[in-house]
C-alpha cells in the first residue's frame, strides 16, 4: 500500500499530465462545438508541454541560467556543475512547442471564423445537418 | 535434351513495337486514306518482320532479346521459338487481311471514330505479338493485360447501352480473372521456383507439392479466361456487339487465341509435360475441355444470331486446342497447336461473312438469311468452305488438325475423347450446315430483302475469299505449321 502511495506521489506530475491530456483528448473527440474543441486541443498540447518540463526537473537544482555576475566578463572561470541546474533541453523543445501551439491556434480560429461565415453556427451537428439538407 | 541455339536480335521487339509506333501517325493523319495506308504499311511491315525470322526458327534456333531487367531474375524479355512463331505468323498475316476488310466494313457502314478504331486495333496487334514472343510469364502477363485493355474500346465501339454493358462483362471476366487468378499463380510460381522463364520442360518440376501444383493449374486454366473455358466463357458472346472486323480478328484470332496460347505456354513452359503426366493432371484438363466442347456446341445449336452462334462455336473450338495439349501426347499436341492456325483461318472467314452480310443487308439473325446465297454467292461459298474447315472435313485445313487430335487421343489411350471429338464434329455440322442449306436452297419470303441487295463492297469480299482459299490451301500445304509444331513438340518432350 505504501509502495503504491509512494509511486503515486513520486510521479504526481506524470499522472496529472495524463489526466490533462485525456481531458483535452476527450474534449477534442466528444465536444460538439468547434471552439470548444480548439480549447481542448490547446489543453492537449499544454499537457505534453507539462510532460516535457517535468522531465527536466531535477531535485535541488536551480533554473537553467548560469549564475553570472555582471561586470566581470569572461575572466572569471565559473565552475559549473550539471547537477546544479535544471535540464535545459526540454525547455528549449517546449518553447518551440508553445509557438507551434499558438500558430495552430491561430489557424484553427481562422478556420472556425470561415466556417461560421458560411453556416452561421459553430455546432458540428448543426453544420452537418445543414450540409445534408443542401444535398 | 539438346541445346538450342539462341540468337540475340532486336527484331522481336521491332515486331511488337511497329504497330505501337504507328499509332501517333494514325492519330495525327488528316485524311482517312492516309491513315489506312499507314495501317496497311504497318501490317505488312509487321508480317515481313515475322516472316524474316521464320527461317531461323525453322532451323531450330531461337531469337532472344532482353528489354530490361525489372525484377531480380525476371526481365521483360522476348524469345521467338517455334510455337510463338506459329502464332505470330497467323496473327500478323491475318492483320493484313483484316485491315482490308476493316476498311470496307467501316466505310461501308460509315462508322464513327474510325481513327480510334484503327489505333486500338494496332495496339491490340502489338499486344498479341508480344504475347507470342514473350520469353517469360511476366512479359506474357504484361501483354496479356495490354491486350485486354486495348480491346475494350473496340468492344464498346458503338458507345450505346448494349456496348457498355457488354464492355463491362468483357472486362470483368478478362481482367478480373487475370488479376484474381493469374497474378497470384504467377507470384506463387515465382516464390517457388525463383524464376518465371519458360523452359522446355517447365520450371515448376520438383519445386512444388501435388496440391500446390493442382492449385496453380486450376488458377492458370481459369485465369486465362480469354481461352473461354467454361464457366468463364460468357464474355465471348457478349463481346459480339463489337463491329464485325473486331469480332473477326480479335474474337477469332487475337484475343481468344492469346488465351489458348497462354494456357498452352503455361502447360508446357511452366508445368512441363512430364510433371503433368506424373501427376496425371492431363486427364483433368482433357475432361474440362471436353465438357466445354460439348456444351459449347450444344448451345451454339440453339442460337439464332449468326455472330452469337459463331461465338459459341469458337468457345467449343478453342477447347479442342486445350484438349489436344492436355492429351500430353506428341500427336495430340501437334494437333492442338496446328488447330490454332486452322481454326483461325476458318473462323475469321465465317466472321467476315457475317459482317459482309450485315454490311450488305443489315441482317444479323440466321432466320432472316433464307435464300441469301443467291444474292451473295461469293460470300456464302466462302462461308461454306470455312464451315467445312471448322467441322473438320477435307479438303480443308481443319481436317488435318482434327485428324491429329484423334490420333493423339488414341496415342494417349483416351477412348472417351475420341467420342467427344466425333460427337462434336457432328454437332458442328448440325449447326453450320442448316445455314448453308437455307442460304442456297430455300426461297426467301417476300419483302425479306430489298431488291437492291448485292454483294458487299469489294474491300469486304476480297479478304474473305482470300482466307477461304487459304483454308483450302492449308489442307494441301500445311508443312510450315507442322514443321513449327514438330520443333515445338521436340522441344517440350525432349525427343
Amino acid at each position, binding site marked *: 500500500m505504501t509502495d503504491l502511495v509512494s509511486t503515486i506521489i513520486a510521479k504526481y506530475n506524470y499522472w496529472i499530465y495524463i489526466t490533462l491530456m485525456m481531458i483535452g483528448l476527450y474534449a*477534442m473527440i466528444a465536444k460538439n462545438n468547434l471552439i470548444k474543441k480548439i480549447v481542448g486541443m490547446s489543453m492537449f498540447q499544454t499537457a505534453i508541454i507539462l510532460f516535457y518540463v517535468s522531465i527536466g526537473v531535477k531535485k535541488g537544482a536551480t533554473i537553467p541560467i548560469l549564475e553570472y555576475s555582471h561586470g566581470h566578463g569572461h575572466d572569471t572561470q565559473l565552475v559549473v556543475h550539471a547537477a546544479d541546474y535544471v535540464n535545459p533541453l526540454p525547455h528549449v523543445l517546449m518553447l518551440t*512547442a508553445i509557438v507551434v501551439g499558438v500558430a495552430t491556434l491561430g489557424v484553427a480560429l481562422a478556420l472556425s471564423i470561415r466556417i461560421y461565415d458560411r453556416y452561421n453556427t459553430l455546432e458540428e451537428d448543426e453544420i452537418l445537418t445543414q450540409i445534408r439538407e443542401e444535398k | 535434351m539438346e541445346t538450342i541455339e539462341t540468337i540475340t536480335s532486336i527484331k522481336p521487339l521491332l515486331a511488337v513495337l511497329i504497330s505501337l509506333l504507328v499509332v501517333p501517325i494514325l492519330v495525327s493523319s488528316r485524311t482517312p486514306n492516309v491513315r489506312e495506308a499507314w495501317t496497311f504499311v504497318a501490317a505488312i511491315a509487321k508480317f515481313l518482320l515475322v516472316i524474316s525470322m521464320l527461317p531461323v526458327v525453322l532451323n531450330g534456333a531461337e531469337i532472344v532479346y532482353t528489354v530490361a531487367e*525489372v*525484377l531480380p531474375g525476371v526481365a521483360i524479355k522476348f524469345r521467338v521459338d517455334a510455337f510463338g512463331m506459329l502464332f505470330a505468323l497467323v496473327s500478323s498475316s491475318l492483320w493484313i487481311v483484316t485491315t482490308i476488310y476493316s476498311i470496307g466494313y467501316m466505310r461501308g457502314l460509315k462508322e464513327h471514330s474510325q481513327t480510334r478504331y484503327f489505333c486500338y486495333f494496332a495496339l491490340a496487334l502489338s499486344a498479341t505479338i508480344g504475347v507470342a514472343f514473350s520469353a517469360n510469364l511476366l512479359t506474357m502477363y504484361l501483354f496479356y493485360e495490354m491486350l485486354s485493355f486495348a480491346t*475494350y474500346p473496340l468492344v464498346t465501339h458503338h458507345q450505346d447501352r448494349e456496348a457498355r454493358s457488354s464492355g*463491362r462483362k468483357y472486362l470483368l471476366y478478362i481482367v478480373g480473372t487475370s488479376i484474381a487468378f493469374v497474378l497470384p499463380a504467377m507470384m506463387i510460381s515465382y516464390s517457388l521456383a525463383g524464376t518465371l522463364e519458360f523452359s522446355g520442360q517447365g520450371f515448376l518440376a520438383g519445386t512444388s507439392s501435388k496440391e500446390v501444383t493442382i492449385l496453380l493449374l486450376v488458377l492458370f486454366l481459369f485465369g486465362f479466361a480469354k481461352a473461354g473455358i467454361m464457366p468463364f466463357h460468357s464474355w465471348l458472346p457478349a463481346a459480339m456487339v463489337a463491329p464485325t472486323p473486331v469480332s473477326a480478328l480479335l474474337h477469332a484470332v487475337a484475343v481468344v487465341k492469346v488465351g489458348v496460347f497462354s494456357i498452352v505456354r503455361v502447360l508446357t513452359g511452366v508445368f512441363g509435360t512430364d510433371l503433368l503426366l506424373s501427376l496425371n493432371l492431363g486427364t483433368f484438363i482433357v475432361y474440362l475441355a471436353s465438357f466445354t466442347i460439348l456444351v459449347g456446341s450444344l448451345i451454339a445449336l440453339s442460337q439464332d444470331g449468326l455472330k452469337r452462334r459463331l461465338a459459341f462455336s469458337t468457345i467449343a473450338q478453342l477447347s479442342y486446342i486445350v484438349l489436344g495439349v492436355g492429351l500430353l501426347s506428341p500427336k495430340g499436341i501437334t494437333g492442338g497447336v496446328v488447330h490454332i492456325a486452322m481454326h483461325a483461318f476458318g473462323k475469321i472467314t465465317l466472321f467476315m461473312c457475317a459482317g459482309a452480310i450485315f454490311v450488305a443487308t443489315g441482317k444479323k439473325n440466321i432466320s432472316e438469311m433464307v435464300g441469301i446465297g443467291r444474292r451473295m454467292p461469293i460470300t456464302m461459298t466462302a462461308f461454306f468452305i470455312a464451315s467445312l474447315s471448322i467441322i473438320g472435313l477435307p479438303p480443308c485445313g481443319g481436317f488435318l488438325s482434327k485428324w491429329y487430335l484423334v490420333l493423339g487421343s488414341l496415342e494417349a489411350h483416351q477412348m472417351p475423347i475420341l467420342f467427344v471429338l466425333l460427337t462434336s464434329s457432328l454437332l458442328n455440322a448440325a449447326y453450320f450446315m442448316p445455314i448453308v442449306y437455307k442460304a442456297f436452297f430455300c426461297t426467301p419470303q417476300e419483302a425479306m430483302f430489298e431488291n437492291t441487295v448485292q454483294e458487299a463492297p469489294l474491300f469486304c469480299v476480297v479478304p474473305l475469299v482470300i482466307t477461304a482459299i487459304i483454308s483450302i490451301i492449308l489442307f494441301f500445304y500445311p508443312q510450315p505449321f507442322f514443321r513449327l509444331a514438330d520443333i515445338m513438340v521436340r522441344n517440350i518432350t525432349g525427343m
Partner: protein
Amino acid sequence: MSQQYPALLVVVPLLSAMIISIAGWVNKRWCFPIAVAALGVAACSSVGLLLQVLDQGKVIYLMGGWPPPMGIAYYIDHLNGLVLPVVSIVALLNLIAAKKSIEQQFPDKIGPFYSLYVLMVAGLLGIVATGDAFNLYVLLEIAALTGYGLLAMGEERAPLATLNYLYMGTIGACFYLLGVGYLYIVTGSLNMVDIAGILPDLYQSKAVLAAFIICMVGVWLKMAFFPLHAWLPNAYTYASSAATGLIAPLVTKVMIYVMIRLMLTVFTPAFVFSFLNVSDAIVWLAVIAIVTGGVLALAERDLKKMLAYIIVAEVGYMVGGAWLGNRDGMTGAILHIVNDALMTLCVFLVVGNIVYKVKSYAFENLQGLFRKMPFTMGAFVIGAMSIIGVPPTCGFFSKWYLITGAIAAGHYAFMAALLFSSLVSVVLFFRVFEICFHEPFSDNHGHDHHSEAMDEAPLSMLVPLLIVAATLIVVGLYTGVIVNQIIQFAIPASLV
C-alpha cells in the same frame, strides 16, 4: 558546394518562401519564377544527394557545426536519398502544372499561395532529411500548418474538412511528440541514430513500448491509416486542385517514410519484429484498410473523393508491406512510396486538368472526355493502370514485391487484399473510363455521334502530366535498378 546539398535542400525553399511572400506584395509576376527556381534548386540538390549517397554511402550534415547528440544533424542514407528526389520533383512538377489553375482560382492571393506551397515543400523535405526526432516534429508542424492553409482554400466545405484535419493532425503530431518525449525520458537523447544505439538495453522497458505505440498511432493518424482515416477524403476532395496535387501525393507518403524510418532506424527491426509480436495484427489492420478503402471508393460518385479513398487503400498497402517483417515486404513498401507518389500525382494532375476545363469532377459531368481531352485521359489511363497494377507501369512492381513479401510471410490474407484492391481499382477506373468514353446517349441508336471539338488543357498543364505519365512507365522498367542499387541498401541487413 556539393557538401552543402542537405542544407540547400531545405534552406533554399525556406528563404525563397519568404522572398515570394515579399514579392507577392511588390510584384506578383515574380512569385512563380522564384518558386520554380527554388524548387528547381531543391530538386537538383536532392538528386545530387542521391548520387552522393550512391557514391559514398551515408551523408551526414551537421547543422550549425555541432556534433550530433548536441546539435541537429541530417542523415542522408539510401532510404531518404530515394525519397528526397521524389518529393522535390513531384512538388516541382505539380507547381508548374498548377500555375494556370492557381491564377484562375486565387488571382489576388498568388503570393501567399506560392509562399505556403514552397514552405510546405521545405517542411516535407526536412522531414525526410532530418536525423533528429524533435526536429522532425517541428518540420511536421510546418508542413501541416501550411497544408491546412492550402487545403482550406477550396470549395465551400473545405474549411470544415480542414478543421477536422487540423484536429486530427494536431493529435497525431502531439502523439508523435509525446512518443519522442518517452524516448527522451528513457534515453536522454533526441538523435535518431543515438537513440537506436541506446535502446537495445531498454527493450524490456514499458516506456519504450509505449513510446513506440504512441509514435506509431501519431504517424498513422497523419497518414490516415485505416481506423484513423476519416479526415482524409473530405479534406482532399474539397481543396483546390493545385493544393491536392501537392498534398495528396506527398503527405501520406512522407508519413509512411517517417513510419519506416522509425521502424528501421530508431526502434530497429530487432525490436519491432522480433521483440514485439504485433506484426500480424497490424497487417490485418492493413488488410481491412485496403478492403475498406476500396469498398468506400466504390460508393463514391465523384472522381476526387474516389481517388481520396484509393489513397486510404494505398496507405494500407504500404503499412502492411512494412509490417510484414521481411525484406520483400519492406522493399515493396519503400518502392511503393516512390510509385504511389508518382501515380497519385498523375491522377490528381488529371483531375486538375479536368477541373480546369470542365469545372467539375462529379461523374455525371465527365461524359465525352476521351474525345475532348485525349492526352489528359491518356495519362489518366496510364495512371489508372499503375494504380490497378498492370505491367509495365510501376504500380505493378511494387505490388509484386508486396505480394512476394506476403507469400514469404505466409500472410495470404494480405495477398488476397492486394488482389481484391486491384480488382476494385479496375471496377473503379473503368467506371470512370466508361463515363468518359461514352458520350451522352442519344435516343437514335445511330452512328452519327455529334462530334465535340477537342478542348485540351493548356500546354503548361499538359506537359508535366505527360512527363509524369511517362515516368510511371520508365520507373516501372527501371525497378530492378532501383531495388538493386538503392532500396537494397536502405533496409538493414538484420531484416531478413
